[in-house]
């Protein structure tokens, strides 16, 4: 079972309630703006604590309220591409990319820095600081950083935002390869129906609930 989730979380005036059990490698998460997609990813990454429920991915339990299990984020091995990128402003691009790589044990890694740089065409940005990157460049570095942390599953919050079609296509192909060759569980947030249809037929729609 790739995903075994039951997440209940109240945030502001909104109640998020998601239950999902799926053995598909890649599940798309859609829903209107403000429905709680990012909140769900944050709960899975360990950055927010659900009010109730259970989170297991790839057979590993990350959170379980009943048994008081709650792994800290660093123990969850997730590759999270944030909606707002969150590059470290004081580090160059290459040090942003290497940040998670250096913390992962080498046998867990399945891609290296040069592959990522070529794949995402960021090789000539390596010595720059994030403040000088364009929107799409920032996005690509954020994706690369997540892949390099040797994650056991991926959380992608609109990874293709700000990417032009050519670069978007490359990222999509990479996602497909990861899905097919590595079989990493992936939760993919997108508003683009075509994109989603191409990647998977498992779509979870989060409604705008009160």
């Amino acid at each position, binding site marked *: 079972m790739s995903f075994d989730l039951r997440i209940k979380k109240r945030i502001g005036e909104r109640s998020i309630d998601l239950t999902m059990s799926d053995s598909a490698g890649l599940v798309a998460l859609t829903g209107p703006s403000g429905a709680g997609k990012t909140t769900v990813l944050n709960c899975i*990454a*360990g*950055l927010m604590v659900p009010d109730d429920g259970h989170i297991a991915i790839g057979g590993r339990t990350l959170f379980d309220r009943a048994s008081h299990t709650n792994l*800290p*984020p*660093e123990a*969850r*091995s*997730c*590759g*999270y591409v*944030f909606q*707002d990128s*969150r590059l*470290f*402003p*004081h580090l160059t691009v290459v040090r942003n990319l290497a*940040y*998670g790589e250096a*913390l*992962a044990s080498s046998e867990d890694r399945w891609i290296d820095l040069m592959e990522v740089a070529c794949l995402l065409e960021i090789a000539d940005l390596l010595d720059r*600081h*994030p*403040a000088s990157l364009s929107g799409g460049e920032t996005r690509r570095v954020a994706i690369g*950083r*997540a892949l390099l*942390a040797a994650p056991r599953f991926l959380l992608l919050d609109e990874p293709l935002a700000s990417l032009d079609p050519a670069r978007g296509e490359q990222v999509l192909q990479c996602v497909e390869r990861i899905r097919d060759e590595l079989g990493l569980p992936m939760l993919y947030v997108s508003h683009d129906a075509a994109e989603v249809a191409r990647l998977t037929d498992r779509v979870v729609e989060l409604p705008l609930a009160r």
Partner: protein
Amino acid sequence: MIAPLSAEELGIIGLSLKVSLVAVAATLPVAYALAWLLARKRFPGRVLLDAFVHLPLVVPPVVTGYILLILFGRTGPIGSWLEAQFGLSLAFRWTGAALAAAVMALPLMVRAMRLSIEMVDQHLIDAARTLGATRWHAFRTITLPLSLPGILAGTVLGFARSIGEFGATITFVSSIPGETRTLPLAIYSALQIPGTDVVVARLVVLSIILSLFALLVSEWLIRRSGGKGAHVL
């Protein structure tokens, strides 16, 4: 007035530098830890700790010196213990002057650092955690470098305050030439003798030059770090 420095003046400058550098270096980690606690943790007694850190600013320096004398003097509870345990004597030693300077610099250092720590975006620390960083690693690699402007500002303030510290020092460790007579104490001393205006002016200019130097070093450090520490995007 523009004669080269006398051996005595050099000695005083050397002592002032030693006292201030030791004071600031020793206070740095303590101040940062306090700043972090005050910026990031909510605990009972937080406001009290905050007030306690501000004390040396509020209480007149002479009183601070007097309290140090009572606590760290040879017969004081902490002083006698330090002496017995480590053979460390602060009374009338330059180490005591450094302690006085450190205590007076502490509140300035804590405030500047705290301000900087509060400005560090928590979302970046979240990002570091998902990349496998423990709390401690994220602190070292994200919070610490991003609060560098505050650390530098605090260090400059603290160093300047240490260079200028007078009241607590003279009360705690007296004004012993070569041992505790730092620049301000030497200036005070010169003010006691008639006809020493030139000596006083020279010493004042020397303290100004010392701290101008500290400022330039800090500006250079900020520039070297590419001003990148200042971005808290």
